[in-house]
């Protein structure tokens, strides 16, 4: 009884705590995108080169992707920061992260020696530097978990979504 009581209490408090945990998750993911986009936005040519280093698309396509990506990341970060269309933003985040994970995994599998370019630096590594694919993958999977949380429970406290909806909704399954 004494042992099970706290967990029962936690379970009872979960519906009340979830929107606040959701805020932390949402702001965390927002920070990830804002940092990732902010680090790349100052040098769009370098961003294009980082994409090109994966050698999965023609150079001209890579430069366009490299130029557009930082701005999309910043926009995603802003959407998550204010909590607008959280589920959609979480879905796009998850999709992007899956692409990044696939890209890093394929670079690893093909034996390329590149930096993932996730937070700005990128491209091929100098001789003697070894790529850190495993930490990069684990980090992206962690971010993916954040996006997954928001996909399942998009309704978080202090969000534009919540403000648009007015009073808290009893049934969250939109």
């Amino acid at each position, binding site marked *: 009884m004494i042992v099970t009581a706290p967990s029962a209490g936690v379970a009872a408090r979960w519906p009340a705590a979830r929107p606040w945990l959701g805020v932390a998750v949402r702001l965390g993911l927002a920070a990830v995108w804002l940092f990732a986009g902010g680090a790349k936005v100052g040098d769009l*040519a370098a961003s294009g080169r980082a994409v*090109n280093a994966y050698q999965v698309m023609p150079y001209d396509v890579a430069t366009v992707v490299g*130029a*557009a990506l930082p701005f999309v990341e910043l926009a995603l970060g802003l959407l998550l920061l204010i909590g607008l269309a959280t589920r959609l933003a979480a879905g*796009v985040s998850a999709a992007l992260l899956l692409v990044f994970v696939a890209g890093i995994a394929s670079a690893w599998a093909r034996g390329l020696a590149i930096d993932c370019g996730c937070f700005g630096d990128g491209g091929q590594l*100098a001789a003697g530097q070894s790529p850190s694919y495993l930490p990069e993958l684990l980090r992206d999977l962690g971010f993916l978990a954040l996006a997954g949380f928001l996909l399942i429970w998009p309704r978080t406290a202090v969000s534009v979504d919540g403000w648009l909806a007015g009073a808290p909704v009893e049934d969250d399954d939109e």
Partner: protein
Amino acid sequence: MSSRKGQKDAARVVRQQLARERRRKRTLWTSLAAVAVLVIAGGIGWAFWSSQRSDNFTPPPGAVGAGTGVVYGAGPVTIELYEDFLCPACAQFQQASGATINQLVAEGKARVVFHPVAYLNRFSTTSYSTRSAAASGCAAQGGKFREYAEALFQRQPPEGGAGLSNAELVDIAAGVGLDRNDFGSCVSDGTYEPWTEHVTEAASKAGVTGTPTVKIDGKEVADRSPAGITAAVEAAGR
């Protein structure tokens, strides 16, 4: 069951349906707005990038035909060097193998095409990679590209700082015997910055993803030591 209760139930069902309908509409509109934000953001990036790149450039005298690098020497084998003046591994490479390459050039065995790329602008607060590469174009104009490039590597600033100032770039030029006034105006006008952009983009297009990259007769050389370079040049010259 009383009809009054039935009415109340029906009214509740209608209210719930209306609420659901409102919710669906709201979700649709916020989603559309969010998608629009993301698409517009991507478009801004593309537009911004397209407006940044310029197609007009003037290569300095001594550049190869396509203007993607500066040539020195006249040997039968071509050594292509892709280097960023801020790249520490490039400075190490110059220190280790620079003399060997100069000797191969002096012996008439090889010519060098030096591509001063600006890959590392992120690693200085003042776009030192672009400024130094453009300055090397000014040195080519003055006929002292190789001397100036070597001096830049010797005075290489650390990554993450402001790099060398334009005044310091001019001082180094004067140190290798370039005209201080001509060089100074060339640097302050940014005469060869569009050329640097062209060199950098051409290198990326050619699949050069890191610096230093050394190609001998078009083939990338993994062993950049003096022995490795000499062996590759002799193999190509045979």
